């Protein structure tokens, strides 16, 4: 009796397993044939815009391989898709493996280009200077980090940079601290501890945020991919770490009287209020497409940024503080990095794709919520960088 039951379940289980395998195989073959289809239909028709292709007889590689920052991933996927749809020349395979891994892959020459939230370290830049003509670093998009908060009934908060530093290094402990109330009188009766939500995983977002805190603290707060917790045990327990921008957004949403930092897009998607921060000109500005673009424009116009072939390690938009009165101060470039010398096919493909990104691709940025197109003067840096690509 029992034996029969067992063999029945075994039979049922194997039937289910076989069905799953068959379906999976069918899906894969279907997918593969679908992927292969567009290439033959598109390649025979020569591209109608010969001005963009340097030589009409150029041979395109099958695909360009990129890897790195997770922050630029949604944008990169959008670009890859639109580029392929528009031109159909070759595919872009971007893997979001994290900035550090992206740079490591670039060093191993395992990718054609890398993307990173931070420029190459000086030591890395020096080491790679003599490899394949050196590394071109060009800003490709802008990240901006905002302070999101959850205080019932409060939608607007204003912070000076000093106060923001003190909240995140743990020295301001309560919402009704005089330094906060001075700017935000509506909090005067809020006798609650501030719960700070930070990124527990190493990330570019934390790097931008801590660079900002480092600047405000005149170097006392360390800028790193990990967030530094306060030393006092009693302060530490007010800090909770969450994973990823999504995790921080959820944790702030679910914790009353908390404050955290995320990329602007997550604040918008998560519908959480974010604070206005005082800029160099003394105005309290909230992050928005305009204020962030204004900040980058202002920095590029006034600060002397290095050449794409030079060392960018000292460049930090946060530290070069935008002077414009309407600029949001906590912004940063995300970079694309590639070698100067490439094989003829790869060089042509990189030139083609990146030029497209800077010229046409910027139009698609607004379609991806929370991402912000580069201002014109930053696009020029990118185009200059592309002109260095050699075979």
């Amino acid at each position, binding site marked *: 009796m029992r034996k029969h039951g067992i063999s029945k379940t075994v039979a049922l289980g194997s039937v289910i397993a076989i069905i799953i395998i068959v379906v999976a195989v069918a899906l894969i073959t279907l997918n593969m044939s679908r992927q292969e289809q567009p290439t033959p239909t598109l390649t025979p028709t020569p591209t109608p815009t010969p001005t963009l292709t340097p030589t009409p007889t150029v041979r395109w590689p099958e695909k360009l391989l990129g890897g790195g920052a997770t922050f630029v991933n949604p944008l990169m996927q959008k670009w890859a898709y639109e580029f392929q749809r528009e031109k159909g020349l070759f595919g872009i395979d971007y893997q979001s493996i*994290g900035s550090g*891994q992206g740079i490591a892959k670039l060093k191993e020459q395992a990718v054609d280009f890398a993307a990173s939230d931070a420029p190459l370290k000086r030591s890395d830049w020096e080491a790679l200077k003599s490899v394949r003509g050196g590394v071109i670093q060009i800003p490709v998009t802008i990240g901006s980090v905002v302070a999101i908060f959850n205080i019932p009934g409060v939608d607007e908060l204003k912070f000076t940079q000093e106060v923001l530093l003190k909240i995140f290094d743990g020295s301001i402990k309560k919402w009704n601290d005089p330094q906060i109330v001075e700017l935000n009188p509506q909090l005067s009766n809020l006798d609650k501890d501030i719960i700070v939500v930070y990124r527990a995983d190493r990330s570019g977002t934390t790097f931008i945020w801590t660079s900002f805190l480092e600047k405000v603290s005149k170097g006392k707060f360390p800028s790193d991919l*990990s967030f530094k917790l306060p030393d006092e045990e009693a302060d530490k*327990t007010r800090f*909770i*770490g969450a*994973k990823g921008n999504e*995790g921080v957004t959820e944790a702030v949403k*679910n*914790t009353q009287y908390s404050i955290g930092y995320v990329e602007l897009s997550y604040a918008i998607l998560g519908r959480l209020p974010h604070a206005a921060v005082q800029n160099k000109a003394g105005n309290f500005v909230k992050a928005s497409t305009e204020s962030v673009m204004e900040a980058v424009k202002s920095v590029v116009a006034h600060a002397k940024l290095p050449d794409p072939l030079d060392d960018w390690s000292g460049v930090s938009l946060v530290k070069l503080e935008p002077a414009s009165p309407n600029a949001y101060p906590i912004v940063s470039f995300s970079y694309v990095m590639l070698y100067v010398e490439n094989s003829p096919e790869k060089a042509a493909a990189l030139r083609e794709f990146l030029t497209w990104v800077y010229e046409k691709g910027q139009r698609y940025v607004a379609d991806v919520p929370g991402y912000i197109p580069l201002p014109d003067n930053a696009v020029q840096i990118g185009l200059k960088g592309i002109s260095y690509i050699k075979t």
Partner: protein
Amino acid sequence: MVAIRKSIFIFLGSFALFLALILPFYFFGELYGASEFFSKFSFLDFISGREWSLPEQKYGALQAIYGTIITAGLALLITTPISIAAAVAMSELLPEYLSERLGMIIDMIAAIPSVVVGLWGILSLGPFLSSTLYKFLIENLGFLPIFQAKTLLAYNKLTAALVLGYMITPFAVSVIKENLRLVPIEIKEAAYALGLTKWEVIRIMLSYIKPGIFAALMLALGRAIAEAVAVSMVIGNTCSFSVSLLEPACTLTTLIINNFAEATGTEAAALIGLGLVLFVISISTILVSRLVYNKLLGGYMR
């Protein structure tokens, strides 16, 4: 026919042998990655280091060890009475059709991916507990150091332990249930023949399968120690030695899973070191439980 069956068994059995052979390789692999670690740290300093802070280049594993022991221990504490009670209820007290369905549901819990359990912890369990149970604990039992907390947090050691307890209970339940089924019918019949009540019989049965219960709980504990994804989502990830269960902590696994993707050089080596500590803890759990199990078993052989 017999030959075919035999060869199938031998074929499958060789897989188990293969696994047994992998273990030493795993050891070497671990040591290979760890050579980087040993070249940069002294193991004793590492495990007795009181502070873990990557921005300040402080690599001490003690806080993470503390977090691992507290959360896994607490999860075990939660799961022990629940799983024993559930197993007894299912095998002895409930009518068969009910216990069969209940067993199926509990087995299903074991099949939920840990990331889904973690999401559930973040989105519903944590916020719910913080507005009900944790609030009650802080207000009424706040005089106990373990329930002292200045602020109400949804993500803390207790949430992590509850999520872990939820995840490991199905394993303990099904093993204990199987053990109860294996109690010889003669023992039960003899007990009833002596005029014992149902409860007394259950007590005899439980003491008969003591080694089995112990093994089941150790299996669950091993899983609790090794669990990473779900815990990292609900524990709050702030390394500290705070005694309060309502304050955040970090564990060996959460530090590794949070930091490894973006770690290079010394940080990566330190994370490998954490893996090594975890390995030592799991191996010693297995060895100790093996010893105790044999001792328990020996008591019955005599």
